[in-house]
């Protein structure tokens, strides 16, 4: 430790005010505080002791909660690859390694580009390196298909960090969720690499088995609605029997974005976030609630077989669970008031299902629903706060 401290101490004179590299001071501090909790103490007045938690630890908690999704995602990329290419005797390790080989480069590009933009801004604006990107950097790969070209990951990350965060003033000031902004950028700029039936399963240079289709359940639904066929009955003819059984969907052994497929892993993450108090259980619960209620409404109104898909299927397909647990709960872009969180989450759930079923252009709706509600979160909060003020005024004049 002493060695590392000495190393930092030897760099310090070169980045202090007035020294040659003074502009790099924030980078120096940022790196030092990763290894060492700083020696800052409380002021002469105000609290003399402070809570042990800081933003670094809170963000680290989210990363810990994301690890199950990440590891499962790596395995599932390999698993789907071997399923699609007809290799039946692939081992757990070979699946995991193949998936990791696809996922890790995406993760490295995401962190590399994102931190690069972050550091550049820190130096230009002379503000400390903020921890927000530690989480964003892992969220971005998890909402990408494993087949995404790395240059697109780099473009999307740079766009997200720059447009969604830095122009607003950095972590804590952004309006939109940064990772979803990155994904939305690709979705509209390069749709053929992030949408459609062929992107979700990594085939490599192998040839898929006969009858293979990379379609997700949602694109099956959209197709059934368009063709007037029976969706749920048609699933029996899927190239891989049992793929879209409810419990298989719940476990997430299906094609999809890297980290979003497994509801089980998302729920493990949710448990960590809720127990540690980092994520709002109100938001998570209300997203699921909103999606289910809207699914039921479609069931009642049902005019095609996609609308008649049992409402609880909405909770286990697509990215709803991942979005509810890790994206909607982003404390900066979500509603801040406790009442507002219920409304915000519920509307995300409702909008997701509306987009899924009623908008033929977008098979999945969670990304757009969250971004849309990010924009509306301040409005929700405004009305909740106004109601609070009215109540306070009434109480004070009694």
């Amino acid at each position, binding site marked *: 430790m002493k060695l590392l*401290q000495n190393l930092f101490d030897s760099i310090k004179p070169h980045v202090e005010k007035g020294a040659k590299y003074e502009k790099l001071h924030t980078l120096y501090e940022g790196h030092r505080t990763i290894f060492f909790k700083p020696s800052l103490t409380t002021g002469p007045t105000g609290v*003399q002791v*402070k809570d042990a938690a800081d*933003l670094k630890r809170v963000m680290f908690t989210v990363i810990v909660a994301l690890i199950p999704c990440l590891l499962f995602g790596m395995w599932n990329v390999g698993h789907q690859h071997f399923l699609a290419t007809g290799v039946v005797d692939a081992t757990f390790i070979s699946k995991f390694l193949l998936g990791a080989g696809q996922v890790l480069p995406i993760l490295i590009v995401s962190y590399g580009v994102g931190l690069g933009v972050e550091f550049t801004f820190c130096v230009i604006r002379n503000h400390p390196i903020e921890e927000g990107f530690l989480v964003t950097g892992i969220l971005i790969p998890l909402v990408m298909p494993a087949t995404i070209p790395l240059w697109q990951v780099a473009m999307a990350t740079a766009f997200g960090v720059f447009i969604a965060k830095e122009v607003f003033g950095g972590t804590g000031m952004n309006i939109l969720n940064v990772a979803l902004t990155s994904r939305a950028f690709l979705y509209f700029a390069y749709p053929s690499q992030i949408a459609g039936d062929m992107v979700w399963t990594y085939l490599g240079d192998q040839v898929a088995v006969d009858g293979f289709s990379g379609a997700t359940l949602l694109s099956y639904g959209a197709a059934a609605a368009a063709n007037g066929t029976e969706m749920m009955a048609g699933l029996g003819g899927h190239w891989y029997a049992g793929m879209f059984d409810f419990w298989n969907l719940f476990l997430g052994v299906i094609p999809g974005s890297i980290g979003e497929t497994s509801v089980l892993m998302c729920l493990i993450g949710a448990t960590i976030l809720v127990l540690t108090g980092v994520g709002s259980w109100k938001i998570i619960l209300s997203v699921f609630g909103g999606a289910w209620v809207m699914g039921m409404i479609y069931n009642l109104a049902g005019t095609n077989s996609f609308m008649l898909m049992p409402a609880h299927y909405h909770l286990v397909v697509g990215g709803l669970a991942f979005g509810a647990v890790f994206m909607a709960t982003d404390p900066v872009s979500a509603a801040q008031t406790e009442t507002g969180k219920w409304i915000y989450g519920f509307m995300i759930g409702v909008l997701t299902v509306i987009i899924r079923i009623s908008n033929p252009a977008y098979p999945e709706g969670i990304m757009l629903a969250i971004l849309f509600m990010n924009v509306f979160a301040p409005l929700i909060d405004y009305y909740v706060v106004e109601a609070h003020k009215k109540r306070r005024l009434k109480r004070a004049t009694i």
Partner: protein
Amino acid sequence: MPQTFHLKKGFNIPLAGRALLSEHEISQPDSFAVKPSDFKGLVQPKLLVSVGENVKAGDPLFFDKGSEEVLFVAPVSGEISEIIRGERRKIIEIRILADKEIDYKAFQKQTKTDINNLTRAEAIAALTAGGIWPSFIQRPFGVLANPSDEPSAIYISAFDSNPCAPDMAYLLRGKEGVFQLGIAILNKLAKGNIHVNLDSSEIPSVFSSLEEVNINKFSGPHPAGNVGVQIHHIKPIGKNDKVWTIDPLSVARIGTLFMEGIYDASKLVAITGSEIIHPHYVKTYSGACLDKLVAENFKKTNARFISGNVLSGENVGVRGYLGHFHNQIAVIPEGDEEEFLGWMLPSFEKLSFHKAFGLFSFLIPKKEKVLDTNTNGEQRNFTISGAFEKILPMDILPTYLFKSIISNDYDEMEALGIYEVIEEDVALCEYIDVSKNDIQAIVREGIELIRNS
């Protein structure tokens, strides 16, 4: 029948080093000081003494330009040894080299019948001349009360819920009579609207036989003992209201002033904190220099000497002086050292209100903790929502209130409750803030903005 309020929100900090209920003899400090900064809302203190002058305990040292009849008096007799000034000649400390035996200025003693016949104006005149008045604090704003106002009520918090706080009943030991008399005088100021707020345990004898007061009981974690939180639950104040608060010790001093005709600045002080070898109580006077109070009773480490508690006290140093309103000294380790991966490593020892990764202190909430002065992280933008709301037991949205202050939005501040809080009420918010903002300073800034608008 006392009214009982059950507060759920809050957080008790189990700081190591609570004082045992025993009084320890010490040799009294030679040096005492009165600090104008202890009193909020002063316009401009005007000196009435100069260096070298001799004063008796109770002789006026200065008055404030804002209300000239209110006198700030010497706690002990002796020679004015030094007047410390800061920028723009602002008075920081008026130091007194104390006599060995205290010589008291004689005020008029009053008999029971005198007191019964006392008018409100006469009572106020006696209190302002007798040096007690600066202990009256006005809400909203937490500033020096104006003697010409008529408050709708006077509130006394008779327990302290801060970390390692002194036992109020112990501080008032043997002062039952003067305390009751003090209450009688307060009734001259706000007839029938004197509130004494107690915790939920059995009522201590000093408060059990009070006449003409409303007793309220508060249960729950800190800040249940903060008078601002108590007022919020008893009868919240708006912009047109004015109430006063006073601490129990000053109530007893009022009694002494009228009964014995002296300004009695003696007080018991709890010597607390993990760096104190024997945490106990010592008897001294307001404004005492800390050095003799802690004497050899602290571990020879890199320690911080705080007048008051660790949430709203002040780092004065071992040669600093006890604040006027402080009945406690806290001595805790300085945390000016780096810790390898300190932001990440799991720990049972690090105290946190949050349950973020690796912070397991919530599993053993009663275990006493040694806390140092490290900020445990760097300052950031407000990021996490919902935590302040979980800790402030008031019908206030703290995050929105703080943001309205930061953006200087007067209407929002007013509507969101700036009139109901002072620094100490939001001290826990500052403690738990993962973004490490100076929230007490933000709130004081907001109060001053509104006061001067």
